[in-house]
């Protein structure tokens, strides 16, 4: 009876609006007061090694079905909890559920003690030491290595400079190699001759706010749009929780060690050394062609931080015979968080590692 459905519909709409208004008020108060922030990085883990501010984390699991273990190397500019954002939306959680033994090398929050750190401190010292720790802890001779964003650059440099490093495979995600294609982030240094020294803070590092402003300037309207989206869906508890987790992480940068920043700008950006073969580490000429382990490159076609032309050439630069590329319709963060990550990125990485792993891995 159409005549009856109209009043029911109107009552339902009114009820729904009242409920939404109440939810808006409740969520608005939570946001304004900063109470009940969503827990992030909650997957249980143990710190098994420390090196300065860096920590090596081992995620707890009683169900390791594949080996060798997976060591994730995170970026130097942001916080690693994006990989373990919230329960149910965690890259780490997916890997553990799939049966991998997962370790993460977190660089911590650099301070003046890290200002003199060069890329070699990470590539030739910390990463090899972390790999040795993982091998010892897991009782294996090899590790699968995975690098995200600038962590991917560090893993590439390590694998290229250490051809005998005990790597079983290498996966890089959203990792730039052609720095001339970085866009505004690169142009500020390459096109203007801006001296890195002029942006260093008192501690000798690039301050987090510089990184934050640089990333924000890439999409000038994005922040306003985020607030409009939030206003529109303020009634939706799930959306608000996800918004708080994501925006909290996006504004939570760490200082970039000054000496490494100078080296990265000169060698990686101005000389575009990964593309031109002018890469020098610890006095040695290094080429990505020296990487021969099974290799996977994952890149996002909508990545505005590391655009596809900056990350795509890596597949042609590495010397591996067994190499694969995964191009996804995702942004920089969408590769590890959200629906695309859960349905495509993470299952593909898991499958890549599974095919190259020993089932029911026995470390002995």
């Amino acid at each position, binding site marked *: 009876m159409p005549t009856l459905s109209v009043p029911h519909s109107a009552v339902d*709409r009114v009820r729904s*609006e009242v409920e939404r208004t109440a939810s808006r008020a409740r969520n608005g108060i939570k946001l304004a007061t900063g109470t009940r922030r969503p827990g992030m990085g909650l997957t249980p883990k143990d710190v098994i090694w420390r090196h300065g501010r860096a920590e090596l984390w081992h995620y707890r699991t009683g169900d390791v079905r594949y080996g060798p273990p997976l060591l994730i190397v995170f970026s130097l500019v942001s916080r690693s909890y994006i990989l373990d954002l919230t329960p149910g939306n965690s890259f780490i959680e997916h890997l553990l559920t799939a049966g991998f033994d997962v370790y993460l090398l977190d660089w911590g929050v650099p301070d003046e003690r890290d200002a003199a750190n060069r890329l070699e401190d990470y590539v030739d010292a910390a990463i090899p030491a972390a790999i040795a720790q993982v091998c010892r802890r897991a009782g294996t001779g090899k590790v699968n290595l995975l690098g995200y964003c600038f962590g991917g650059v560090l893993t590439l440099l390590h694998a290229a400079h250490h051809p005998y490093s005990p790597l079983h495979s290498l996966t890089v995600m959203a990792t730039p190699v052609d720095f001339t294609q970085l866009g505004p982030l690169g142009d500020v240094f390459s096109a203007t001759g801006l001296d890195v020294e002029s942006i260093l803070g008192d*501690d000798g590092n690039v301050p987090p706010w510089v990184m934050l402003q640089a990333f924000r300037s890439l999409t000038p309207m994005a922040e306003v749009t985020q607030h409009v989206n939030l206003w529109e869906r303020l009634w939706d508890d799930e959306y608000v929780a996800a918004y708080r987790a994501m925006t909290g992480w996006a504004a939570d940068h760490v200082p970039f060690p000054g000496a490494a920043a100078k080296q990265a700008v000169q060698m990686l950006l101005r000389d575009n050394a990964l593309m031109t073969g002018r890469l020098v580490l610890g006095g040695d000429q290094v080429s990505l062609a020296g990487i021969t382990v099974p290799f996977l490159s994952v890149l996002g076609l909508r990545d505005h931080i590391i655009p596809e032309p900056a990350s795509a050439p890596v597949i042609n630069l590495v010397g591996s015979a067994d190499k694969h590329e995964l191009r996804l319709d995702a942004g920089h963060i969408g590769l590890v968080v959200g629906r695309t990550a859960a349905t495509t990125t993470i299952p593909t990485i898991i499958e890549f590692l599974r095919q190259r792993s020993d089932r029911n891995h026995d470390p002995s």
Partner: protein
Amino acid sequence: MGELVSVPAVRGAYDAIERRLAPRLEALVRTKQYAQVTALLAGARSSAGDQAGRVSACLLHACNLPAGPDISRLRRQLGELDREVRQLRLELAAYAENRREEPPDADA
């Protein structure tokens, strides 16, 4: 309920503005001029900070007190020492590991 009408209407208006404005702003930040202005501002900010630092340092030094740049220099020097200690620690650990893995000396 005014909300039923106003939120989609405001949203529509915002989307229309955003569709027109966002590509222009994004194109602007990709220009060489924008990069140059950013670099210029960073340089100006740095030299303004240096000037102010020099003046305050002169005043503090006149009273035999350390100034901000002195503390920064000390912090950096301590940082370099810390880095060297970290490197030595890693080298020692690697040396100890190699010693453990080496077979016992037959002559010993």
